[in-house]
């Protein structure tokens, strides 16, 4: 039989089929190739034996399939990761207060909803993210967070939700815990609604169709709610109530609180440059001065009883005692009387007469130096803090992270404030607790112990005046 491979003698059908089917041993394969190289007839036969579908098999189509098969395992995790990132951004943005970005996120999520493989992943990711975040917060936001994620998805889907769901969303937006005097379970909603009507216009939250676009509007309203509410309340309280408000100190700040407020004279005009001294029970003091708008802010305060003393040249010294609870910010509005008298007002944190307002706040981290903060001023999301040693720190994210500013000035910085050359009087209060829109004329101003004045628009680049 092997003689069939001799020149001129052809292999039989069995040998040909063994060769073509690839089951020939190596030496049989070589001998068959050698014969085929010489024998046109057998070459013709082996090509005729090829089924048409097999000869077409190695063509480019399988190569495409191979490529897709290679990419598919990478594409699915990538899609899941993208969904997780989107869920993260959508969840974080309401607290950061950047409405434009939120709207983009909502529109991005929308086309992904109908796809079966990705509908599960975003929901799971967003909820699991919310669960992972919840231990950092109090119980109320943790319960609301998955709900928020689901509502965001529905809102992005353009679904008209009933009013009850709108309230849920408003509740979720105003997620920080309400410390005081909630008259009804729907008090946060009422607070938001009042803020909308007072600060923005005549519409109410429930009037807005809750699609992606209006959901964004709702987010835009939130900072205004806080701002407008604080401004109006402070004016109202000046006449009727003790000049103290207490705000929730932010969802993530579980232990530290703060004091902020505005110092005015009996006519309602703000008192700039007043010295605010806060003394705790052990006698440690924190000091700051009011800005040109009369506002002051002291943060990172442990809970406890404090004595606040406001002094200004030409005014009587005013002292107030406050009982600061954990995770609360006391808003005070001392009214300085002309003269040299002193008064002490004692207020407990649970005073039922105080009006509460919710605020969307981010956690304010202590400055890296670890020293007490002497003063903090905020311009938009940029905050400057001056510690007791005269070190200046800048935060670009509302106080979450601080970066030390290397001083260009000689001496020690003793005072920082926001400079407002046009003193319109209608400018909103500024501070790290009340994010507000940034005016083009606002600049940071720093005063050194040599009375040199430096200004900066961004807190980083300083110029001497």
């Amino acid at each position, binding site marked *: 039989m092997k003689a069939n491979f001799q020149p001129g003698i052809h292999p039989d059908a069995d040998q040909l089929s063994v060769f073509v089917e690839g089951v020939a041993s190596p030496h049989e394969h070589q001998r068959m190739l050698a014969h085929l190289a010489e024998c046109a*007839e057998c070459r013709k036969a082996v090509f005729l034996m090829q089924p048409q579908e097999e000869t077409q098999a190695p063509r480019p189509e399988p190569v495409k399939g191979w490529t897709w098969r290679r990419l598919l395992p990478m594409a699915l995790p990538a899609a899941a990761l993208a969904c997780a990132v989107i869920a993260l951004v959508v969840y974080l943005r309401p607290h950061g207060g950047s409405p434009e970005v939120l709207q983009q996120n909502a529109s991005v999520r929308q086309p992904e909803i109908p796809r079966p493989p990705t509908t599960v992943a975003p929901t799971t990711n967003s909820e699991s993210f919310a669960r992972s975040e919840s231990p950092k917060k109090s119980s109320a936001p943790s319960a609301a967070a998955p709900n928020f994620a689901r509502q965001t998805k529905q809102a992005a889907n353009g679904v008209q939700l009933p009013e009850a769901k709108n309230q849920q969303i408003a509740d979720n937006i105003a997620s920080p815990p309400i410390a005081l005097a909630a008259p009804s379970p729907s008090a946060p909603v009422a607070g938001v609604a009042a803020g909308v009507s007072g600060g923005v216009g005549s519409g109410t939250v429930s009037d807005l169709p809750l699609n992606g676009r209006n959901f964004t509007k709702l987010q835009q309203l939130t900072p205004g709610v806080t701002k407008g509410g604080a401004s109006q309340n402070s004016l109202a309280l000046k006449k009727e109530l003790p000049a103290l408000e207490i705000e929730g100190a932010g969802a993530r700040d579980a232990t530290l609180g703060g004091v902020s407020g505005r110092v005015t004279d009996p006519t309602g005009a703000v008192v700039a440059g007043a010295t605010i001294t806060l003394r705790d029970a052990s006698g440690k003091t924190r000091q700051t001065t009011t800005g040109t708008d009369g506002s002051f802010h002291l943060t990172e305060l442990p809970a406890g009883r404090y004595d606040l003393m406001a002094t200004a040249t030409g005014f009587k010294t005013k002292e107030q005692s406050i009982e600061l609870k954990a995770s609360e910010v006391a808003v005070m509005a001392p009214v300085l009387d002309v003269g040299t008298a002193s008064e002490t007002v004692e207020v407990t944190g649970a005073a039922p007469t105080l009006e509460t307002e919710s605020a969307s706040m981010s956690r304010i981290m202590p400055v890296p130096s670890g020293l007490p903060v002497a003063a903090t001023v905020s311009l938009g999301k940029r905050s400057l803090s001056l510690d007791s040693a005269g070190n200046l720190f800048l935060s670009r994210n509302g106080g979450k992270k601080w970066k030390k500013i290397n001083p260009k000035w000689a001496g020690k910085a003793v005072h920082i404030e926001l400079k407002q050359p046009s003193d319109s009087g209608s400018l909103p209060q500024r501070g790290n607790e009340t994010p507000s829109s940034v005016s083009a004329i606002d600049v940071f101003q720093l005063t050194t112990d040599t009375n040199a004045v430096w200004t900066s628009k961004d807190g980083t680049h300083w110029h001497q005046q």
Partner: protein
Amino acid sequence: MDTPSANIIPTEPSGGKDCTTASVAKEIAVETEPTPESRLLPEMLGEELWRTAGAEAVEVSKAEFSQALETIGARDNFGLEPGKQASERQRETFWRALHLEELAIARGCALGRESAWRYFLAQYQDKLTRAAVEMTRSAVLGEELASALYSELFGLTEHEGKRWSPLLGYSGRGSLIGWLRAILAQRRVDQYRKIGRETALNEIEPAAAVSEQIELKRLEDLQVALKMTLSGASAEERFLLWAYYLDQHTLEEISGVLRVHVATVSRKLKRATDRLRKQLLRTLVAQGLSRRAAEEALGSDPRDIEINLRKLLQNSENAPIPDKEEQG
């Protein structure tokens, strides 16, 4: 074993389908297989393989099946190179790797067993006809080719004075349908050759008219150089060169025969072509031609070298089989 050239096309092509298997079975003379190797297959293994093959269902006895296994093993030396002695384990591995069920059917058909033919017709008749139509690219020619093969398989042809079925040559190493396609292809090539003797030679362009760039003397020199180069090339390279340049098969078709990726075929073919071209250039330069003139003679354009190589190969003795369809 028979050769394609020795096969005889049956005089009654349609008889393969019409004849009754019972009448054929009595008249078929089965080749007597040599018996000394019988002892190579242990009885236990032989029975196991016989049961695995379902040979009883196609009326093939244990002894007949064992004898077939012994014959096949001895014929192919159990897949080893000639002269090597297969161990017991190698023999068992070889036998177990066979397509035992299909081997039993083929043996049953070759022995004229009616139940085997029922199996065969049920499983392979349509496939065989489709394959024949595919090869001939004609329903009429395909039916005719398949019918002729059927009559041959039934044992209507005589071999050394006895009725003989080509199915006896099926070893079970490949699939039965693969074997059927191979024998169909051989019969188809037989048809080509018959036609080719009359017409094909006129279709091939004479080498002298192939290239105006190459003078006749240079052409003869190139033929010598080509032979020398090809003789030094591996079997696979020669097969590639012939199949691609001479038979003008596509890379995909060649990759299907060699069972390698088309990119591999392309790479190997390029390597073989480059080597062949360099050798031809060297030969021309050795004959006094300048390097530039030699390159021009072979063609500086890559397409020229393909054309010239094809024509050189066509002018050699290994002429291709014309792929002309026979009408009618």
